[in-house]
């Protein structure tokens, strides 16, 4: 039978497959599908079909790449488009089959999309889904669609046409065609495939080999496996074309033994090729003869390196050898050898099928065509994707990947596996092509793409990859064997908090030398994860070394419990939670008080970073740590004072400027250290933003004042209405040290025409006036411009002041909104409206305020690593309001007469981030005045640091730690309770919130508090076993 006849038969067979007369059920049963449960689904369907007598044909197909939705099931009914269903379970599958095949209801609610020309109303086209739409599927064109064990399916879809075309050309013409396509090595090095073939073709010798490198070993990479499992012939056709072009008579596919299904499919496909006369002597009647062998690799990462791979085929230990000679000169068994990656071969096949020009029409200037990636990690939609080269990273992560899991901030993406590098969020707009990635210090590699969010520690990531490369080094060359080991040792030390700053220089130099001096690609690239994290995340390294702080709270050596590690004041959260569980809220409070003087305030308003890293959150929901803190603060019986030690007077005098959380915290701890502290407050009330920035319904004033009074009881004098114009004067006036913590009390202006109109007010002034008890009037219709917590506070306050309609105007979308989600939720419940993608352009004052706005759309990522809002041209519209509150930011107001250095952009004071010392001896600065508007707990942390630094400056020990709580009793072990969510916070009913400032959150009862405390996993005890 000649090949044309075979093609006719194949096309007929494919035709009946597509235009089926009997319903077909297609299950994605590649390794990924099977791992997700495809086999169970298949069995259930099989049983069901037998039982029910429904006539349908079931076929196993490969992987379409939507890993996040596996197992996948497609159903084709005669005359209907193919429908794809995701996340199928046996029950769900049978439900769908019953519904669709018997009742003709395609279950639109469960369908993901349709395939093919025709559509079904209510079901989107599959390739219109956000994950698939930006993709260009060339290499993956057949994956998940055809039966990978049926060569006819491949042939019917133009398979082996490329080879047939090649046979009609001279080998040199084939090489020229590949060169014209611009195809570059998809194994990651990016060398021109055509040129590579040419070198091997020109190399003298009668015996030549081609090798397909299917030793995919990067952690998190599975492109090659999926392709081999889903469309093996596309790779084999490429090899055939290459062998013909190069003049090879024998080929090897080096595939790791961990890919059993790929091996089965390859063996099957090779057998079919033999039957079809596509392998062996005189292929398709030509003078070209070629045979192909499969060599199973034992899973050594280094065997992906071409010379090591060839050594392995030869039966030797898989160790690389130096080049030259290059494989094209002397490769396998010393003969000229061409080795390409799976995807390169598959690309060659499609290039010959569809033409070089067509292929080169995709991609960027220097990186032509498409590339497959395994998109994994912390994205919503993981999967196998194929994109035209040059697509920005952000499109891949946010459109195809759907953004970060749980909407956490994106931190970095590791491309190219352990040989690649970490690309930070600053480079989210980076086009993904060979040059750009290389410039960023990463590589395309074989195509692994691991997305990381804020819960990933970059030092730990570097350490992880080094662990891998270190143990996968073949051990041959000194640089790689010992260099990676020393790198790993240094990284491990840093992760355990045992690092030294000079380690970073050593590490960096070591990386450079290992890169320069290693024998093969493994060693030459192993430092990349370290180099890129050092380049983009050096601050994380320094935090580990200097502060023993891991911001992602993952490094076990320095993180006992993520909650206390994440807390800026390092409150020993698990310990106080255990006291609550033990029925001792007073002792719990003592634990909190060991670190902060504002337990009640924090219990009410803390932004609780602790909860974001709570390990329980990975199970179901984080512990309600703030609520438990509030519960503890409500049970103050003075126990904490019993253990409180006050040092004898030191004779030193300290002035604190500003009575906010930073100032008063510093005052408190300095007083405990025996220093005489005077606090200067410009306002008539103490408490700073806690007092004048936070509305009463969130933080009642009496609660704040109770915490303030405890500080005063230590002898701290708070001088109200005392504006300090020059901190230097205080030093001259006899204070031994001064702590400047004046906060950020100046509202930022919009900078648009009409902003000074009556009825326009900034949120800081607005909230301060309200909190100082002044008569503040708002109109019926109030607009709040901005998206932060202050905007929400302003909106909710306006409602309580009698506004009938409050609208928040925000220029981005809900996703980017910086306000706390729970605050937004409450605001919405209370009736606040939020308009997204809107920005004011001007304000005109007529009888009311005419706010001219413009619609916005999101563009590229900006420096805040959110997508930049861009005005939509000519979309201006006017909204009428009575009052406009501008809540787009706050700035510090620095003392007028001071020589302190100020940042010109942020207007913040400059101080040493570690010691808070300023350029003036004896003058320290911290809190919002230095950092810009931040949270109470961060200000408290700054106050603590100021106390430490000032005490040290005054000759003290700088030790402000005190144990106030009694020793813990051993508690019974944690009960395994399965999924359990936190108890709801009792809330003031919405109706009762009008026209008053009564607290909205009502606090936990004893029972609820204990119930919640019981959920704590006690991570802090973990490391002690």
């Amino acid at each position, binding site marked *: 039978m000649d090949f044309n006849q075979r093609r006719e038969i194949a096309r007929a067979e494919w035709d009946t497959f597509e235009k089926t007369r009997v319903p077909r059920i297609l299950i994605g049963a590649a390794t990924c599908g099977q791992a997700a449960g495809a086999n169970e689904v298949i069995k259930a369907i099989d049983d069901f079909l037998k039982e029910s007598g429904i006539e349908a044909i079931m076929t196993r197909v490969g992987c379409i790449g939507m890993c996040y939705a596996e197992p996948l099931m497609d159903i084709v009914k005669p005359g209907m488009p193919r429908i794809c269903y995701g996340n199928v379970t046996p029950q769900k599958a049978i439900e769908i089959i019953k519904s669709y095949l018997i009742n003709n209801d395609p279950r639109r609610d469960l369908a993901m999309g349709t395939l093919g020309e025709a559509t079904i109303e209510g079901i989107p086209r599959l390739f219109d889904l956000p994950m698939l739409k930006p993709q260009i599927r060339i290499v993956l064109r057949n994956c998940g669609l055809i039966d990978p064990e049926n060569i006819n399916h491949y042939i019917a879809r133009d398979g082996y046409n490329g080879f047939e075309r090649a046979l009609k050309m001279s080998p040199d013409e084939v090489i020229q065609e590949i060169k014209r396509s611009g195809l570059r090595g998809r194994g990651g090095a990016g060398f021109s495939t055509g040129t590579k073939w040419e070198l091997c073709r020109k190399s003298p010798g009668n015996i030549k080999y081609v090798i397909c490198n299917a030793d995919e070993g990067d952690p998190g990479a599975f492109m090659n496996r999926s392709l081999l499992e889903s469309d093996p012939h596309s790779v084999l056709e490429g090899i055939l074309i290459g062998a013909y072009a190069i003049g090879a008579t024998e080929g090897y596919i080096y595939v790791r033994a961990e890919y059993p299904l790929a091996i089965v499919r390859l063996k099957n496909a090779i057998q079919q090729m033999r039957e079809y006369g596509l392998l062996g002597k005189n292929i398709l009647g030509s003078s070209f003869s070629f045979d192909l062998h499969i060599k199973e690799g034992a899973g*050594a990462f*280094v065997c992906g390196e071409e010379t090591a791979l060839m050594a392995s085929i030869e039966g030797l*230990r898989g*160790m690389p*050898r*130096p080049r*030259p000679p290059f494989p094209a000169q002397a490769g396998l068994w010393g003969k000229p050898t061409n080795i390409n990656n799976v995807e390169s071969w598959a690309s060659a096949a499609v290039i010959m099928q569809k033409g070089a020009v067509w292929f080169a029409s995709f991609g960027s200037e220097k990186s032509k065509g498409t590339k497959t990636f395994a998109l994994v990690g912390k994205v919503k939609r993981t999967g196998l994707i194929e994109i035209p080269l040059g697509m920005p990273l952000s499109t891949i992560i946010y459109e195809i990947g759907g953004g970060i899991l749980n909407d956490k901030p994106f931190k970095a993406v590791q491309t190219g596996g352990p040989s690649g590098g970490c690309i930070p969020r600053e480079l989210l707009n980076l086009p993904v092509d060979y040059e750009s990635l290389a410039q960023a210090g990463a590589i395309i590699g074989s195509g692994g793409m691991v997305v990381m969010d804020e819960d990933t520690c970059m030092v730990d990531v570097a350490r992880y990859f080094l662990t891998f490369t*270190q*143990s*996968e*080094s*073949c*051990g*041959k*060359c*000194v*640089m790689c*064997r*010992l*260099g*990676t*080991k*020393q790198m790993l*040792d240094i990284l491990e030390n840093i992760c355990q908090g045992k690092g030294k700053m000079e380690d970073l220089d*050593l590490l960096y*130099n*070591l990386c*450079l*030398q*290992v890169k*320069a*001096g*290693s*024998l093969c690609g493994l060693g*030459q690239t192993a430092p990349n994860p370290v180099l890129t994290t050092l380049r983009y995340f050096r601050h994380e390294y320094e935090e580990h070394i200097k502060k023993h702080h891991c911001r992602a709270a993952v490094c076990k050596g320095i993180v006992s419990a993520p909650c206390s590690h994440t807390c800026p004041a390092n409150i020993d959260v698990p310990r106080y939670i255990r006291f609550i569980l033990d029925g001792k809220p007073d002792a719990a409070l003592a634990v909190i008080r060991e670190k902060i003087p504002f337990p009640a305030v924090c219990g009410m308003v803390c932004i609780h970073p602790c909860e974001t890293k709570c390990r329980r959150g990975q199970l179901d929901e984080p512990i309600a740590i703030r609520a438990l803190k509030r519960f503890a603060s409500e049970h103050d019986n003075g126990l904490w004072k019993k253990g409180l030690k006050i040092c004898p007077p030191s004779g030193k005098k300290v002035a604190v400027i500003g009575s906010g959380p930073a100032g008063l915290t510093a005052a408190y701890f300095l007083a405990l250290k025996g220093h005489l502290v005077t606090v200067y407050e410009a306002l008539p009330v103490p408490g700073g933003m806690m007092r004048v920035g936070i509305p009463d319904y969130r933080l009642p004033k009496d609660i704040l004042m109770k915490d303030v009074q405890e500080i005063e009881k230590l002898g701290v004098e708070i001088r109200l209405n005392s504006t300090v114009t020059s901190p230097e004067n205080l030093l001259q006036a006899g204070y031994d040290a001064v702590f400047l913590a004046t906060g950020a009390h100046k509202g930022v202006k919009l900078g648009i025409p009409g902003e000074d109109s009556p009825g326009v007010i900034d949120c800081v002034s607005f909230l301060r006036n309200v909190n100082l008890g002044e008569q503040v009037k708002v109109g019926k219709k109030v607009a709040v411009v901005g998206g932060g917590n202050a905007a929400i506070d302003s909106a909710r306050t306006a409602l309580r002041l009698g506004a009938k309609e409050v609208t928040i105007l925000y220029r981005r979308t809900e996703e980017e909104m910086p306000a706390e989600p729970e605050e937004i939720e409450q605001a919405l419940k209370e009736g606040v409206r939020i308009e997204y993608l809107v920005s004011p352009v001007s304000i005109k004052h007529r009888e009311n305020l005419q706010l001219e706005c413009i619609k916005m759309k999101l563009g590229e990522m900006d420096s805040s690593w959110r997508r930049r809002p861009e005005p939509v041209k000519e979309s201006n519209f006017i909204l009428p309001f009575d009052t406009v509150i501008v809540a787009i930011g706050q700035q510090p107001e620095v003392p007028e007469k001071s020589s302190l250095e100020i940042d010109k952009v942020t207007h913040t004071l400059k101080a040493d981030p570690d010691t808070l010392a300023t350029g003036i001896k004896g003058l320290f600065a911290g809190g919002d005045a230095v950092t810009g508007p931040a949270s109470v707990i961060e200000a408290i942390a700054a106050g603590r640091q100021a106390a430490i630094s000032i005490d040290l400056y005054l000759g003290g020990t700088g030790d402000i730690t005190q144990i106030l709580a009694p020793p813990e009793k051993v508690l019974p072990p944690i009960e395994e309770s399965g999924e359990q969510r936190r108890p709801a916070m009792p809330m003031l009913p919405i109706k009762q919130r009008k026209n008053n400032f009564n607290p909205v959150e009502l606090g936990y009862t004893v029972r609820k508090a204990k119930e919640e405390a019981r959920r704590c996993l006690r991570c802090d005890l973990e490391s002690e076993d």
Partner: protein
Amino acid sequence: MESVFLTINGKRIEAKSGMTVLEAARKAGIYIPTLCYDEDLEPYGACRLCVVEIENMRGLPTSCTTPVTDGMVVHTETPAVTEVRRMALELLIADHPADCLTCIKNQNCDLQKVAAYLGITDSLFTRSLPRHEVDTSNPFFSFDRNKCILCAKCVRTCDEITGVGAIDLINRGYQTQVATFGNRPLLESICKSCGECMIRCPTGALAPKQPAQVEYEVKTTCPYCGVGCQMYLGVRKNQIVSVRGDRENQVNKGRLCVKGRFGIAEFVHSKDRLTTPLVRRNGKLMEATWDEALDAVVAGLRKYTGKTAVIASAKCTNEENYIFQKFARAVLGTHSVDHCARLCHAPTVAGLAQTFGSGAMTNPISEISGAACIFAIGTNTTEAHPIIGWEIKKAVRKGAKLIVANPREIDLVRDSEIWLQYHPGTDVPLIMGMCRIIVDECLEDREFIRQRCENYDAFKESLEKFNIDFVANVTGVPQEKIVEAARCIATVRPASIIYAMGITQHTHGTDNVIALANLAMLTGNVGKTSSGVNPLRGQNNVQGACDMGALPNVYTGYQPVTSPEIREKFEKAWGVPLPDKPGLPLTEMINAAHRGELQAVYLVGENPALSDPDLNHATEALRNLKFLVVQDIFMSETAQMADVVLPAASFAEKDGTFTNTERRIQRVRKAIDPPGQAKPDWRITCQIARRMGAKGFDFEDPAQIMLEVARLTPSYSGITYEKLENICPQWPCPAPEHPGTPILHAEKFTRGKGQFLPLEYRPPMESADAEYPLILTTGRTIFHFHTGTMTRRVKGLNIIRSSELVEINPLDAEQLGIHDGEMVRVISRRGEVTARARVTENSPAGVIFMTFHFTESPANKLTINELDPVAKIPEYKVSAVRIEKLA
């Protein structure tokens, strides 16, 4: 190789294409540090110290792996290069113990040298603690992985140089280490303890257990096998304290086997050495003065005039053997002088003399690695001739097809393309069967046969009987394998035939040799590079002892005693009348002694009481002698029966020459003084001769003896000690300016035309029967030598191999209920011995194997005293035995 010019550090340098940058730099005197480079090994590129910058090349290529090209511009000392080198070395040092002062390699350590060159005194990194146990299992060297820098020189040596492959790298990354199979101690591995790895180790990882502080070194030739490795003996206070191979020597190129490297000093300095003459008085050997002893010898030999014989020694020098045979012929008036060549290669001498005209290895050892095909039959080369074994493996590495014909699964089988496992004693049908196939398939070298050979038709006719069915049936080798082997040797050229005792020690030994000569001529594999018929001689100087005429039928240089002209020449030279009939060969001397016809024997450096077949018979024969003089360095089993025992000097204590298996004449030099009153053999024999009134024994030194040898021996005519200082030629070396003859029969055969000889199959004398159902075949192990007089005195060798191990196939063992390691009794028609059994598939079913090194289990008590009719060699290789498990 063409010349290329490159620039290194601005200096224009000439190099040969194919050289590496490192080699070119070294040649030009430019130092580039390296730790993994070794000139004997293939480039490896692991230590990264030899990196350089090369213009127009990416990164920092390693100079040890980068070939030179014309116009290349190299910089060896740039900042980038230095940075990498320093880092590499600091990494190594961080992982290396800091115990330099107590390290055996202190000041001899390459790591130290490179550190000094780079000016590195400490490492920036945290030093690792020792993490490996030191492997001290090997008696000669220790293996401390803590000091290992993983340059893999040892691994590569074991693979590339020796082909043993006892060690390799295991694990990955930082866990990578050098280890044996299964990470067992070295002693439990297949390691042959040659120490080649140790001498290449750049650090103290592989280091000798006994450090040597050498005063001076003396270059000499190894006293063990016939390969003739040259070595330097390191001497301190008249003691040999070290041995190292001579890199300049063409034979071993610095390589040594375990015996040569580690098995010399101990036997030379053994407390068992004979230090005074002994004379038997009242049945007991008593110490005597030299005068007393020599008088006794003279008296004894005189008394039995006409019934005396001399047994010379393949362990003694050429000069000494010349003296022995001259003594026999000129003083005792008998041609009955022979030596142990009778027991090993007499058929070679006989068989090749008939076919080619001279019986010695046709081609040099160094050509073996160049062969395209090697037919190794009846030789367990890697055990008996280790360095030649390595050359065979090297050839295989380079792509040669190796055909191994051996009943046992010897080490070389692992490297072979074809293994012909034939029944012991079926050599003639096997080889003639191959010839038949070659002729049938018209693969013979007709041109060669026509031009260079004769008697082809008769030979061809005799092939009729060796049809493939018959051959396969008799030999037990599947037909297709014989065909494959025949085609291979006929078509893959050049082919080199290598054989040893497996061919000769048969009652049809001479036929076997002739068969091989036929095969070589048939395929045109004579007189060409890397071809030929290459008998491997067993003893260090067995070739020389034959050359010197320590044979009953020839004078020096194989000049027949029956030739009147030759006799005349020697009568004239020696001034005495000489007999015209050949004397008794060694084996017949024993028989004659047994019969009482031979009554006195002057025996030098041999031990027939352990080496002769049918020992009971041999011992009886020796006892039957009226007078026995034994001259030796030890009180051997034979010496114990002597009437006078004369203490001789060992090879290290005298001057002379040895001629190795490839006919190369090499110097033996005195390194130390003999112990006690021991004297060089030539001096003792000359003294006896003089005391017996003979003339022509007044030599001052061996150089003078060699002058006489050269005068009387055409093939040695060009040999003088002066010449040997510079080159060690292979004979024939007919004139002083002659460079020697590496390849025999190059233009024409020694006898003119090569003579094909027809053959017939004669089965071995004994075959398995109901009473003695097994065939015993004998051989050697690498760890011991012959009757063990030398090696059994080396403690380390006894640790590695302490006793006889009877190799028996698991099938036979199971039938007999014998388990590995159990004691068994082996019984033949002639005697019985006990030894431990080693159950192994190395021996085929029906065949057991023993060595003859162990006096406790003397295998030759079992062997048959049946002789080849021509060469008079006994059939050591085939004896019928039975085996019993010891209760």
